[in-house]
């Protein structure tokens, strides 16, 4: 199938998912006014948040995979999401309530955490040239552990209410009401998506290796810094709002690559749409699987993602040997 046909199909499927998913869910009332309120103020914003977060996470995953030239590298496996989580956790613990230029303080805290983690991973991988993918992933695991223990420590010090808030948030959830959060998140993810879509040719060349990218005329260092910055911003904003929703950034780009190929000019829009649709679907499952109780969507994505990660690891190992 030609990439353009595949992309049209993905667009159509995503559209259908977006339109029908708000109608799925438990309904305990027959009052049309209440039903309308639930749909307009709870279900639709929730679907929108899921779509925006899913798109952003999937795109950031795609960028990491290209930049580190490794299908297992994502903001989650490299500890960037943990950094963001730590930032947001500290923000809750300190009981701060700040906002910068209309941006919620927890977003700023998560962004800072993400940026610190990414600088960590990058400087270590840069410091030691000829970094193997195993070492890179192990670095990410170490960073994740480190930040996770700091999160646990913060939680331990917190009072019961804060601790529970942190715990629920860490599971990754999309329970929001109204459109405030949608408006908070949209600008970050849009900016990030626009820049990534603008840099698709550079991503293609980075995938071929730094030496080739440089000799073709890519200002590799600047492109990397720009991409690290926008992915940190995007992951930070999503994590601050929805918690660390794992593995979307690993699964979606990989599935899209199988569907549409590795050319980022096609892969990036496909990943954006598929990522959004995917998280919306996961959230529908999370709402329905043990209704009337909802489970956090992060639990679903991680349940799917764990086995997927193992499968990729085995496949990738078999290929490289």
């Amino acid at each position, binding site marked *: 199938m030609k990439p353009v046909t595949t992309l049209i199909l993905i667009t159509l499927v995503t559209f259908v998912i977006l339109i029908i998913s708000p109608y799925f869910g438990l309904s305990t009332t027959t009052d049309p006014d209440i039903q309308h309120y639930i749909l307009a103020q709870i279900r639709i914003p929730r679907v929108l948040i899921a779509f925006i977060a899913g798109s952003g996470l999937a795109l950031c995953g795609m960028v990491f995979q290209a930049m580190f030239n490794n299908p297992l590298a994502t903001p989650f496996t490299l500890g960037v999401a943990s950094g963001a989580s730590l930032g947001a956790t500290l923000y809750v613990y300190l009981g701060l309530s700040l906002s910068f230029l209309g941006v919620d303080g927890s977003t700023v805290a998560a962004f800072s955490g993400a940026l610190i983690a990414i600088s960590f991973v990058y400087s270590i991988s840069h410091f030691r040239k000829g970094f193997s993918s195993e070492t890179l992933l192990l670095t990410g695991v170490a960073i994740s552990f480190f930040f996770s223990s700091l999160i646990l420590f913060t939680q331990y010090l917190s009072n019961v209410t804060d601790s529970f808030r942190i715990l629920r948030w860490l599971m990754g959830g999309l329970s929001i009401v109204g459109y405030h959060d949608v408006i908070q998140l949209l600008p970050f993810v849009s900016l990030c998506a626009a820049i990534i879509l603008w840099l698709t040719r550079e991503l293609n060349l980075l995938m*071929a290796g730094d*030496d080739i990218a440089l*000799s*073709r*005329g890519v200002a590799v260092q600047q492109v990397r810094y720009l991409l690290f910055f926008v992915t940190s911003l995007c992951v930070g904003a999503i994590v601050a709002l929805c918690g660390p929703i794992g593995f979307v950034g690993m699964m979606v780009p990989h599935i899209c690559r199988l569907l549409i190929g590795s050319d980022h000019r096609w892969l990036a829009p496909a990943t954006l749409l598929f990522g959004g649709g995917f998280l919306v679907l996961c959230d529908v499952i999370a709402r329905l699987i043990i209704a009337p109780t909802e489970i956090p969507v992060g639990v679903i994505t991680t349940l799917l993602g764990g086995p997927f990660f193992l499968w990729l690891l085995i496949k990738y190992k078999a290929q490289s040997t």
Partner: protein
Amino acid sequence: MTKLLDVSDITVKVDDKILLSDTSFQLQQGDYLCVLGPNGAGKSTLLKTLMGIIKPTAGTIFLNQQSLSQLSQKHLAQQLSYVPQAHGRQLHFTVADFIKMGRYAYHTAFSDWLAEDQHAMDQAISITDTEPFLHRQMNTLSGGEVQRVMIAAALCQQTPLLLLDEPTSFLDPHHQVEVHQLIRQLNEQHNITIIEVSHDLNHAGQHSKHILALKQGKTLWYGDSSDLLQASHLHDLYGQQFVFTNHPQTGAVVALPSESP
């Protein structure tokens, strides 16, 4: 005739370690320079410096009368292209897409593919004879085919200067000959200036025009390639005795490492 490349007294230091010191050479359009030297001599450092990856600590490099430090990465890519070592990296592109990416330096995110781009691409494909596998995936090609595609992508950049980093290492003898013939053809028929890092003494001695021999970051000697194949030169360079004979077919002098007694 004006100089295409003028490297004067460049020194490269990384963390107080001198990787390259006081290296100078000049190239004119159509030259063919082979850079020789034992491992760790500074050959890769020289290539990286020319590509703008490493900045020299001292000295100047002028490319077409423009200082290298003043050129943006894109402008540099319009002057100088590069063929890496064959090292079996996984590339998930079709051959056509990969060659096409050689035109990056002439485009912005929104510019159209023009007739001149297509012309450059067609020409690169025809010179390297990569037409037969144009629609295959890069990771299904043999080592020799990959190197031809790498050269095609570099040619697609339409640069006067081409850098090659041990382009034939890891290739079998047949593909080595094939790639070397292609490089000579580029130099002789298309007047492309070549800088090749190599370990192949006999190839360098016979086919290149000039030799730059590096050892421990210093220029051991720089001159005509016809002077290379001499016992003293080779011994200084590699710390190894060589014996000489004549090629049974062409009569050219051939160096062989001597057996230790």
